[in-house]
């Protein structure tokens, strides 16, 4: 019979402050098969681990229960500990008496102690049914996929490519660059955004290790760490990239003009276009929804009566290298990669949901990003800040913070992190553009926690003479040419009204459209807002809970450029740690078939989402199920589908779970 050792952790006072350790130890002594009980001040400390190792050797322990914090915290640590003492690492069970006990029952010590004893009892009963499990080595594809070509994705791709690994960078838009490409300057240094971004974009395009797929989307992901299979939809540009010389004649001559998304509708673009002059790649795309020839084709295809729309095809006729290719169609590419970095970025909150700010019907109420485009020398006004309504220069500008942030009514309880800083930046830039501008910044709290940030706010206040008013805006309405902005100066406790020429809404950050759907196909978790969830908010901030998939940038949470770049590099390092291994170790906690019990009904196969159940014919001619261990992810769905318990899950076997249930009543 197995000799079981039980180690009860005090975790300082985290556990011992609530749970009576002595009572737990005394109870453990009486549990079946337990031959040794000890306590530890901190089991996870080196001293604690050494004590466990020594006890295993001295007491000839064959199985170990550690009653401590959640297995999510230290199961991996303690598996190593017992392995160092010569035990199979899977002959360990953790009783979670901290997160599930002492921390949640601090108000009732007796009940907490009683519960801790039962949790240990369950763990002892379970560990008695543990079996030694052994890992296997599997191969991997030494190539990475980066989803999203904003600054985070660019950084991750460059870091991995520079480390010598091939990278596929997939971007949904026709160009990489992301949101950063839309910004004029960056805080707190006031570097020109495109001046620091463009060289990186070009480096991506020219890097021999990077395959850049723009105007493309990840459709599905299958497989597991080291061996992902990705389907990528490459949308048709209708322009042959191998012929195009980016001369620009097509987009200059295209007669169809529509509001440019890149400029948030503040200027026009053609139906064949590159989003901005420094786009990478600088190959234009034909916007199918607006191209006249495409509309003509659709009209003809519908076989409608009436006057046919013009055929146009001006771009095709004028293109010197004849790069327009109407036959080009969407293509699905299949790629194998070993690691994935998700950097899908953000979009800004739709401020038209605020009726009290005019719901979008006042032209001179604009968003922060729109002001960036007005400030930018490459923007629609070539850097001249003018009112969209009448083209005049605004003198009184009001900034409204927290539009779609810290607002539970809008379902956005969180702070968007960057708005305080970009409002200060824009106030400074406005003053630089026109010394007569007076900025008023309505804020709730000024959040300026970064390096040099607080100083930057002072610069806005002192140099740019921005007036900061503490209070949220309640109402904006048009009074002739002026916009009346009603707020409270909550420091004086009096209502404030400002007649503004321009109102800038600091719209908050939310995950890009489609991020949730992508997360679903990647099988990674996301929160209620659609931000990706980290494996651990503090200790594993750029890993998803799915092995081999890493996260960077505003896909995780609102963040500023230095934060995104750091995360891009961090995610790259984490991915490189996978790619640089000679082989991967498989998780041994997978399903297993008992061939004597299997009747070959294949309920398991019908339930399995991973195609991990194959069939095999036994020597006596029976067809039964068999588990493909490299595809099995260990969910155990097949186990519950099997009425005859022919299917079992190593590590969470029917015997183990039943032992836990039974222990509760023994």
């Amino acid at each position, binding site marked *: 019979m197995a000799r079981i050792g039980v180690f009860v952790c005090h975790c300082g006072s985290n556990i011992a402050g609530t749970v009576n350790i002595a009572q737990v130890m005394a109870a453990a002594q009486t549990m079946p098969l337990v031959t040794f009980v000890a306590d530890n001040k901190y089991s996870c400390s080196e001293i604690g681990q050494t004590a466990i190792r020594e006890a295993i050797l001295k007491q000839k322990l064959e199985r170990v229960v550690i009653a401590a914090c*959640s*297995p*999510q915290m230290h199961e991996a640590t303690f598996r190593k500990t017992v392995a160092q003492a010569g035990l199979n690492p899977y002959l360990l069970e953790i009783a*979670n008496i*901290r*997160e*599930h*006990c002492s*921390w*949640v*029952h*601090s*108000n*009732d010590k007796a*009940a*907490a102690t*009683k*519960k801790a004893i*039962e*949790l240990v009892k*369950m763990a002892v009963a379970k560990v008695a049914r543990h079996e030694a499990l052994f890992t296997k080595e599997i191969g991997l594809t030494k190539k990475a996929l980066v989803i999203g070509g904003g600054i985070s994705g660019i950084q991750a791709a460059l870091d991995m490519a520079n480390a010598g690994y091939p990278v596929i960078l997939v971007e949904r838009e026709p160009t990489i660059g992301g949101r950063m490409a839309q910004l004029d300057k960056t805080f707190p240094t006031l570097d020109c955004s495109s001046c620091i971004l463009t060289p990186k974009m070009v480096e991506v395009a020219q890097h021999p290790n990077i395959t850049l797929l723009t105007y493309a989307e990840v459709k599905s992901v299958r497989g597991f760490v080291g061996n992902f299979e990705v389907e990528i939809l490459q949308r048709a540009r209708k322009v042959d990239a191998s012929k195009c010389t980016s001369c620009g004649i097509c987009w200059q001559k295209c007669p169809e003009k529509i509001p440019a998304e890149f400029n948030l509708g503040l200027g026009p673009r053609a139906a064949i276009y590159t989003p901005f002059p420094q786009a990478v790649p600088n190959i234009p795309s034909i916007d199918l929804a607006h191209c006249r020839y495409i509309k003509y084709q659709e009209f003809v295809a519908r076989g409608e009566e009436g006057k046919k729309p013009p055929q146009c095809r001006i771009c095709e006729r004028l293109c010197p290298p004849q790069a327009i290719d109407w036959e080009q169609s969407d293509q699905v590419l299949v790629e194998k990669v070993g690691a994935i970095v998700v950097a899908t970025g953000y979009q800004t909150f739709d401020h038209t949901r605020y009726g009290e700010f005019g719901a979008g019907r006042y032209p001179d109420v604009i968003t922060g990003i729109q002001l960036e485009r007005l400030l930018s020398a490459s923007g629609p006004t070539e850097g001249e800040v003018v009112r969209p309504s009448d083209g005049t220069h605004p003198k009184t500008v009001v900034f409204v913070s927290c539009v779609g942030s810290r607002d539970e009514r809008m379902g956005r309880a969180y702070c968007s992190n960057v708005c305080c800083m970009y409002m200060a930046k824009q106030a400074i830039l406005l003053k630089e553009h026109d010394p007569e501008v007076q900025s008023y910044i309505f804020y709730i709290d000024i959040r300026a926690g970064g390096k040099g940030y607080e100083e930057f706010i002072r610069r806005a206040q002192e140099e740019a003479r921005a007036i900061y008013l503490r209070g949220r805006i309640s109402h904006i309405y048009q009074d002739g040419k002026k916009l009346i902005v009603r707020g409270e100066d909550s420091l004086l406790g009096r209502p404030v009204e400002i007649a503004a020429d321009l109102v800038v809404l600091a719209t908050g950050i939310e995950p890009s459209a489609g991020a949730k759907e992508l997360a*679903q196909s990647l*099988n990674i*978790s*996301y*929160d*209620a807002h659609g931000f990706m*969830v980290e494996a651990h908010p503090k200790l594993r901030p750029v890993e998803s*809970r*799915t092995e081999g998939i890493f996260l960077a940038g505003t896909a995780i949470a609102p963040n500023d450029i230095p934060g995104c770049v750091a995360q891009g590099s961090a995610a790259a390092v984490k991915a490189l740690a996978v790619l640089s291994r000679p082989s991967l170790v498989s998780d041994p*906690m997978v399903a297993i078939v008992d061939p004597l019990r299997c009747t070959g009904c294949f309920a398991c196969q019908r*339930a399995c*989402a*991973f195609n991990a159940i194959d069939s095999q014919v036994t020597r006596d001619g029976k067809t039964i199920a068999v588990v493909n261990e490299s595809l099995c*992810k*260990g*969910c*155990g*769905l097949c*186990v*519950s*589908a099997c009425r005859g318990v022919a299917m079992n*899950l190593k590590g*969470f076997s*029917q015997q183990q*779970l*039943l032992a*836990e*249930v*039974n222990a*509760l*009543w023994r």
Partner: protein
Amino acid sequence: MALDYQPKIVGFLCNWCSYAGADMAGTSRLTYPPNIRIIRVPCSGRVDATLVTKCFQQGADAVLVAGCHPGECHYSEGNYHARRRFTVLRELLSFLGIEKDRLRLEWVSAAEGKKFSQLVSEFSAEIAHLGPRKDNGKAAGGSL
């Protein structure tokens, strides 16, 4: 019903969402009644109907199965299977004389520590209110 009646609830929590959600409740020091005993499983879909029925046979006052929200299962589909399985099992148990409310399937994400603690508090109160099992605790009469 005695005032000190303390129901015993078995909770099967999926490792990826709900178990982590329960951890989050702990990390956030959100207290809840000590009636629940948590069993870690990889997925709510792993929870066998026999295992749950066994809990009731042994005398559990209630069973909670918690997994990732629909669409967020770490294994894509396990929670959908759990949803069907426990819908049917609940009907069967109710037909056999165990109130439907005693078997709950809930979705708790890794971030929903608060939801978990509220859930356990509510569930414990609800079961305490329901009182001991009508079949005298041990399934269908225990020592009959």
